[in-house]
């Protein structure tokens, strides 16, 4: 094979007592799409940060074109042609597309705006996007923002492009576009590093795939020489056997929530379904299908302006979360960091946050004793791994944070639990635990509305599955009629709504 564009040679990196990377060796060749897979916490992000100069290795080194280099800072890495594009792109909302592309460009002191604009148009065309280069970045979609970032990397003669979960928040169409761009870049001789949790897309796109686990390199194989099962078992170091298998339904005939013709002008319309006690009901669809908006309408954050919601046989019109909560509805949101948890505050405070009034004396004082009791209880029940419940919740791993968030809402003893992307960004072990919890909650007579973009998860959890597309309800499938292909066909509009 040719000389690797970039190589890691026996790189180790520790933070305090924890080793993030141990003796990691990896070679990236020009013209290949090199996929990297591993559980959360396997060391992928540390590895990216070493390649992009944000961290320096403790031992071992980075080679570019066979020569050892010292990459100090992301600027040094960029000058060497190493750039990264992240799941949440990094753009400047107050600058236009042209300036976003050329912000870190070097060159004359005086900007030649018209030349810059022309160059921007060329770059955008090169990656096959349609985008007005004079638009402010604040109004761009995620996919458009990623395009801006790729164009920025291209403008700097990128030789190694790292894409970190680039398609996690994209619609199927956008994701396919992005994969096409990645392939085109590789064909031009760029070494593309592609990190993804979506195994099927790795098989569509990548040339080689490396598995890493616990900061160590496990294997590098040609994609044609591996299988999903092999990759998964290497990732987790064990057989995950029945992760994908469907759990037993506990649905009853007792209707808890009944939604008819629900709509919010310009966002979604005509949503209608019944949700029974004991049932796990999934909403599937692509990003932009407006599933979360339906949940927000039920929970009272952005109330619907058309249609009716009947809950426990009575009319419900929640104008705020507190209205919905009073009725017994809980909403576990998708974004832990921004909406779900107060990261600097103790675990205990977060767990009792939604039920604070229950811990208040008549004078409005907090009964700390009772709070501690609750926190200890959930820590045990949900297996939250932490030394104690008084440390800031931000110090926990993603999976444990998710469990704290679930505790917060389970403590409300809701009848209806809405869970938005319950396992996004948590590892497979924690995923299974969260799935068990959801099923348990339903088995005890609650109803669960799960919003998920992870099709295996939808199929594993959903007794019935509602598929949405761009604000429209496409179909409600019984589990027996559902398959990944069917859901995708509905979600992309290839199969028409019933």
């Amino acid at each position, binding site marked *: 094979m040719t000389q690797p564009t970039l190589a890691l040679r026996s790189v180790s990196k520790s933070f305090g007592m924890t080793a993030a990377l141990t003796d990691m060796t990896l070679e990236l060749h020009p013209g290949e799409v090199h996929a990297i897979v591993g559980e959360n916490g396997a060391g992928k992000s540390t590895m990216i940060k070493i390649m992009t100069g944000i961290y320096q290795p403790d031992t071992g080194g980075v080679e570019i074109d066979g020569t050892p280099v010292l990459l100090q800072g992301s600027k040094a890495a960029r000058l060497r042609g190493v750039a990264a594009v992240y799941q949440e792109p990094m753009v400047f909302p107050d600058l236009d597309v042209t300036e976003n592309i050329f*912000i870190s460009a070097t060159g004359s002191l005086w900007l030649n705006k018209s030349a810059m604009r022309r160059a921007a148009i060329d770059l955008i065309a090169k990656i096959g996007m349609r985008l007005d280069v004079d638009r402010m970045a604040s*109004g761009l979609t995620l996919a458009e923002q990623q395009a801006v970032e790729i164009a920025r990397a291209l403008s700097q003669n990128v030789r190694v492009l790292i894409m970190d979960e680039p398609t996690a928040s994209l619609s199927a169409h956008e994701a396919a576009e992005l994969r096409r761009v990645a392939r085109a870049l590789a064909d031009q001789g760029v070494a593309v590093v592609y990190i993804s949790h979506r195994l099927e897309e790795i098989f569509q796109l990548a040339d080689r795939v490396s598995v890493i686990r616990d900061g160590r390199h496990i294997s590098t194989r040609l994609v044609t020489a591996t299988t999903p099962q092999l990759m998964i078992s290497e990732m987790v170091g064990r057989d995950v056997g029945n992760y994908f298998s469907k759990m037993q339904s506990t649905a009853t005939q007792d209707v808890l929530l009944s939604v008819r013709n629900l709509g919010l002008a310009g966002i979604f319309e005509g949503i209608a379904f019944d949700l029974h006690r004991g049932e796990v009901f999934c909403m599937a669809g692509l990003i932009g299908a407006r599933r979360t908006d339906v949940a927000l309408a039920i929970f009272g954050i952005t109330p619907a302006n058309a249609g009716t919601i009947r809950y426990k046989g009575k009319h419900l019109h929640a104008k705020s979360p507190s209205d919905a909560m009073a009725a017994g509805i809980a909403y576990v949101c998708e974004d832990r960091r921004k909406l779900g948890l107060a990261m600097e505050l103790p675990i205990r405070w977060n767990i009792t946050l939604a039920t604070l009034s229950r811990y208040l004396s008549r004078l409005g004082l907090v009964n700390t004793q009772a709070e501690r009791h609750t926190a200890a209880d959930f820590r045990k029940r949900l297996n939250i791994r932490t030394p104690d419940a008084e440390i800031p919740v931000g110090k926990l791993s993603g999976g444990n944070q998710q469990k704290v968030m679930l505790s917060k809402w389970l403590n409300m003893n809701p009848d209806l639990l809405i869970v938005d992307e319950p396992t996004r960004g948590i590892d497979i072990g924690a995923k299974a635990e969260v799935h068990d919890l959801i099923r348990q909650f339903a088995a005890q007579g609650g109803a669960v509305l799960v919003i998920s973009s992870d099709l295996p998860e939808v199929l594993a959890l959903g007794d019935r599955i509602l598929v949405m597309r761009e604000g429209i309800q496409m179909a409600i499938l019984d589990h027996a009629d559902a398959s990944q292909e069917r859901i995708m066909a509905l979600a992309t509009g290839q199969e028409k709504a019933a």
Partner: protein
Amino acid sequence: MNKQSLLALSPQLLRILALVAVTGLILLFFATQIENYLNGRLFNRISSSVAVMALIATGQTLVILTRNIDLSVGSTVGFTAFAAGSLITLMPDLNPALLVAYAALLGAGFGLVNGLLVAYASVPSIIVTLATMALYRSLLVEFSNAKSITSESLPAWLVDFPNLPVISIGDLQVRAGFLVAVTIVFLAHLALTRLRPARRIFAVGSNPEAAAMAGIDSRRVVLVAFILSGMLAGLAGFMFLARFGNITVVAGLGFELKSIAASVVGGVSINGGSGSVIGAFLGTILVDLIDSSLVRWPIVSEFWREAVLGAMILIAVAVDTLFIRRLDRMRAARAHETALAQQGAKS
């Protein structure tokens, strides 16, 4: 103006147009209220007092663009005015250029201290400059030894300079002080919009994380913004000395809040990344215009000045925010429509 062409304009330009329109309306209003209002003397009066504040507001804008704030500019103006005054009193034959450089460098030094603490020691700017505001003021008190600078002790060229008419049209005079301020604001605007490194000021304020990822050295950008703010405050100190001649330990007190007010009225977003020095300059003029017109308005007592100013800032910011939000919504709606149309065309 129809919706489409409104959307095509950048928010910056819209703000500037709106400011010019509001200034015009206020001029017209007071012209009907105050006899002999619209004349050259009004221009002379406002241009003289804007000359000092415009410099400070320009510096303040640079700092606010990086998502920081500089509360120490008032004390910097006071100290540099006093120090420059003392120097010229001791050495009356000093070259004027050296005196200006002395004031500017002194201010830049103060800005350097702020900038190092904010950028390299990562102390929030509001804390740093709250502290250095007190510190620089107490240095002034210590330095002055409770004495004042008086205009009698200053050379004539210095005291005459700000009011030196460069262009005269009837009784309307474009004076040297104002001309200097306008030149600096114009140069700052040109640099901010056209110089490659200056665009990084916007980048850092707009999205600090993205700036770090793009390899921009945010610390240096913030440091430079503070140094420039200090330097402009130093220049303003020189102008202050020249204009008033009498400098006491309270010189420049409260200028920090006035400069923030002028920037904010001029459409500079307190959250960083968005705004222009031209806007801040127009904001300075607008604030001063209302201030000096109310004094002459016979219907209300002059003591209403501050109350009106406060209300004006509040209204300006509220209207600006509501307007920009609406504009964003209209833009989003339009982008949505275009996307739908494109999809429709494909299928």
